[in-house]
Each structure stands twice: as structure tokens, then as C-alpha cells.
């Protein structure tokens, strides 16, 4: 109400020309943002359009529109590298969900201890945890591989999943520590007075209040695991164990001359889960990045 009154007041005070200049500037800004944005996502839209075109039309009719539409690429792509692509998507899903559970389990426990409990060596351990955030994965890649190979875990999902149950994503531990520090200590004290031990405080007080941090962790773990290429490439050797990204990569290797249509079709299928997570969890994503700088 007040804004309308206000703008009406300024409207009468400000000369008409300057007002319309203001508005046209705003329209220009919107236009620039929209055009830039469309240019940026154009390749993605183009890939979607191409996946519904007959293979030979992808390059002869390079625009978005096509004279004939077809689902053939999806049919061909589904079985192109031997096993149905659904299997690879399923593998990716199993691994991603397991990693989400692992991170939620291990990172919350560690974060609670760091944020609330007093124990010997807490300072050193916390500093070490922070340092591992910056540790390049290459440093531990080779010995980890040797270790997992020695215990016979290569060509299973275990090397991908088990580390997450051991809290190796220090990023999330840190994120949760910061979050728990924001929860008033009076709640813990009140619970102590009521006879709760540390475990009960964690389970009944802290954990229910940590939902936003848990959501950010879950969303990013899922996306990172889904996109991860190096680890599954390294550990999964049988085709039936492949994740979607590794299987996609095999499209180039297997055919030599790449057939783009089926590859695009399967690439899009592999992006759909990310897209769904993006739509559902936009707010968590944006907040997660703004507060912690995650990717």
C-alpha cells in the first residue's frame, strides 16, 4: 500500500521522461539477463532437441527444429554398449543413495563431537579435519587403490561407498559444525537438567534441529557422487558394475566413430536425476553455496 502511494507521489514529482528512461533501462537489464542466460543453456537445449532427431538430421538441420521427430535414439542408445542403460542408472542410484546415507551418518556424529563435546586432542583433530578439506585427492589415490585391491574390493561398490561411512568428506563435517555452533547451548543444558546424556542430546535435541544442514549435505553428496567419474572408472572394471558416467564414456570407446544421437539420448537420461534434485532442492543448493562455497 505504502509503496503504491510512494510511487504515485514520485510519479507526479519526477518528470515523465526520466521515469520512462528508468523503465527502459530496467527492460534492457532483463533482456540482457535473459539473452545471456539462453545463450548459456542453448547447448543443453540443443542436445535435448537433437536427441529426438534422426541421427542423420542432427548435423544437416542444426537448429532446434526438425522436420521429423523420433524416439529411435533412446531405443538404440539403451542397448548400445551391450547391457541396458537402465542398469548403469540403477548402479549410479544405489551408489549415490548409499553415499548420502554414509555422509549423513558419519559427518553428523563427528560434527556433534567437534561442536559440543570436550575431549583431549579436540583442537588438533579439528585443525587436521580442516586441513583435509584442502587435500588434493591425488595424494591418497594410489595407496587407496593398492589398499582396496589388496583386500579384494576392486570391482565392487565398496571402495566408493565405505569411505563415506568414515566421514572422509570433511567439507560436510565442517558445514555441520558451523551449523551446530549456531544452535543455542541452553537447549543442551536444559536437556542435561532433564537427565539426558550426550547421546540423547544428540539424538533428540541437535539432530532434529539440524535439518537444513542435513539437506544441504544430502543434496551435494548425491550430486557429487552421481557426477563422480574418476573413482568408478578406477574401481569398476566389469561392465555390469558401471555407473552412468563411466558407461557414457564407453560410448566413445566402443564405437570409435561416435554416433551422436544415441549418446545424446543417454547423456540426457543421466542428467535427469541431477535436474530433478536441482528443481526440488534449489533453495538448499543456493543457500549451501552462499554459506559455504560448495560447488
Amino acid at each position, binding site marked *: 500500500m505504502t509503496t503504491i502511494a510512494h510511487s504515485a507521489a514520485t510519479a507526479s514529482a519526477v518528470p515523465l521522461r526520466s521515469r520512462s528512461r528508468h523503465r527502459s533501462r530496467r527492460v534492457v537489464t532483463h533482456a540482457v*539477463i535473459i539473452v545471456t*542466460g539462453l545463450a548459456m543453456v542453448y547447448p543443453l537445449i540443443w542436445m535435448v532437441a537433437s536427441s529426438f532427431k534422426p541421427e542423420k538430421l542432427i548435423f544437416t538441420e542444426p537448429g532446434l527444429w526438425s522436420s521429423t521427430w523420433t524416439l529411435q535414439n533412446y531405443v538404440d542408445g539403451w542397448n548400445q554398449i551391450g547391457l541396458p542403460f537402465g542398469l548403469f542408472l540403477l548402479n549410479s542410484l544405489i551408489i549415490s543413495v548409499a553415499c548420502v546415507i554414509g555422509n549423513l551418518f558419519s559427518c553428523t556424529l563427528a560434527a556433534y*563431537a567437534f561442536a559440543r563435546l570436550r575431549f583431549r586432542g579436540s583442537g588438533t583433530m579439528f585443525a587436521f579435519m580442516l586441513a583435509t578439506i584442502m587435500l*588434493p585427492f591425488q*595424494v591418497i589415490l594410489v595407496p587407496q587403490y593398492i589398499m582396496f585391491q589388496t583386500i579384494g574390493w576392486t570391482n565392487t561398490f565398496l571402495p566408493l561407498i565405505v569411505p563415506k561411512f568414515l566421514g572422509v568428506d570433511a567439507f560436510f563435517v565442517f558445514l555441520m559444525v558451523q551449523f551446530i555452533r549456531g544452535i543455542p547451548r541452553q537447549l543442551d543444558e536444559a536437556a542435561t537438567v532433564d537427565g539426558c546424556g550426550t547421546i540423547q542430546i544428540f539424538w533428540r535435541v541437535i539432530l532434529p534441529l539440524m535439518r537444513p544442514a542435513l539437506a544441504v549435505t544430502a543434496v551435494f553428496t548425491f550430486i557429487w557422487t552421481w557426477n563422480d567419474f*574418476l573413482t568408478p572408472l578406477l574401481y569398476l572394471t566389469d561392465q555390469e558394475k558401471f555407473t552412468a558416467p563411466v558407461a557414457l564414456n564407453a560410448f566413445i*570407446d566402443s564405437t570409435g566413430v561416435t554416433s551422436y544421437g544415441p549418446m545424446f539420448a543417454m547423456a540426457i537420461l543421466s542428467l535427469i536425476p541431477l535436474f530433478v534434485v536441482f528443481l526440488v532442492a534449489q533453495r538448499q543448493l543456493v543457500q549451501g553455496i552462499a554459506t559455504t562455497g560448495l560447488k
Partner: protein
Amino acid sequence: MTIHKAQGVLVRPSTRAAGKERTRRHRGQRSAYLFLTPWMGGALLVTIGPMLASLILSFTNYNLLGTPQFIGAQNYVQMFTADPRFWHASFVTFEYVLIGVPLQLALALAIAMLLNRGLRGMSFYRSFYYLPSLLGSSVAVALLWRQIFGADGLVNQALGIFGLQHLPNWVADPTWSLGTLVALHVWAFGSPMVIFLAGLRQVPTELYEAASVDGAGAWRRFISITIPMISPVVFFNLILQMISAFQTFTQAYVVSGGTGGPVDSTLFFSLYLYQRAFTDFDMGYASAMAWVLLIVIGLFTWLAFATSRRWVFYEGERQ
């Protein structure tokens, strides 16, 4: 919230209270370690252990079969004196970091400023621009990139509209191939943009108004107000993007089909390390490379922190 109902706590004589306090703290310590068990297990088995192992391996010759042979600093000596591919991979990576990171941050800041004009639909635009950075590290997009910058790809078709002919196959041309990966890095500018946007919103508008009254133009306001005010955010983004750019692997692997080609023009440090370890099974050499990478990243991070006093301003520190 569900908190168990109390059994009342009685006031006790002080000595007993102290004793109880002690046992409670003791119990607290025990449960702390209980909570930390998974993390400590991971730190020992998955981080510290492998780190030490890779340091030791870097002084050995080991091909996964047999036992590692101690060869002193030979891996490091060979790397620096007798391995042109090592130097090449280092230069490729430096070039990528030194060009890609500033370009990406500049674009991210530009778009963030565009979005920070109090427009309607800002949060929609923000999500829209963020999307590519979510997909940027996926194999699917890397494959798309191969096509876009191919001989008859989207880029050449777009340039063809302007009458340009005899365009290169960007991905297969050693002059341009690294550029296509830089473009991919820049394209995924969404996450630094979101961080910039959060920083820009903290800048008080009164500062701009005051500067305008004093006759400062848009450029002057940008240099004298925006940049200093968001310098902590610039610093944060710089550190983060730099560290991850040094470790780039997936995009280079997929776009070059695992070779780092054409003619090693996209042989990133991580890709070469991967080849040495898992194609040549030269585990000692790969470990030595990993430690060099760790030290280089550490050095650059230290450099950024050391120079930050001169150009990063924190609100609380101003006199």
C-alpha cells in the same frame, strides 16, 4: 522437540558435586570418542595412512607386483630433469588455472552484479544461471563439449552464419583444444556467482549513494566501493576455484578420450598422474607427482593468503 521429562536434580554437597563433575567429564570424553569413531577410523585408514604410504611410495619403484624398491629421490630427479611430459603437463595445468580461473571469476562477478539490481525474478535467474555449474563436471556435458567444438559442431555453425569459413576442429586442434576446456570451466561459473551475489547484497547502498552525490561514475564506484567491499568474497572464491582447477581431471579425460591429446595439449597434471599410475603402473612415480601437486597447491594457497593482507579488507578491521 522431544526432551525426556526430568528426574529432578538435587543439590549436593560440593565435594560430591566435584566428584560427580569429574566422572561426568570422563563419561563425556568417552562418548566424544564414541561419536568420533567413524571419523577417526576414516582419518587413519583413508587419509593419514594413505598419505604416509604415498610419501613413502614416492621414494620407491613399484609396479603393483612384487615389493616396492627403495630408490631414494630418483623419481623426483627424473621428473624434474628427464621427463618432458611432466613439464608439459605442469604448463598445461598452469595455463588452465591462470586463464580459466580469472575469466570464470570475472564473468561470475559481472553476472552477479547484473542480478544484484533489485530486479524482479532475481531468484529465478539465479537458479537458471547456476544450473550449468551443477552439470559442468559431468561426463554428459563433456561429451556435449566434444560435439559443440567439433568440426561441424555448434560453434562452427554459429560462426558460419557470420560468413566465417575454414574453421578449425577446435577439440582436435592442439592450438585450441585447451581453450575449449577453459571455455567449459568458464561456462560453469554458477557457484562463484552465487557466492558473489551473497557478498554484493551485504554492501550498504548508502555507500553508492554517497559516492554518486560526490560525482563518482559507475566505474569509479565499482573500483572504489564494490571491489574493496567484496574483497573477502573474491578471495574466498579465488582460493576455492584455484584449488579445484589444479585438480581438473574428468573434463580433460573425456574430451580427449583419456589421452590428453591432441599432441598432449590437454594433458592435465592429474591426467598424466592417472596415466602413470594406472596405465603404466608406475605407482612410485605417480605418488611423487601427487606430492609435487600437493606442494604446488599449498604454495599457491599460501601465496594467496600472504598477499591477501594487501588487498582483502575485512569489515571489523577497518580503523
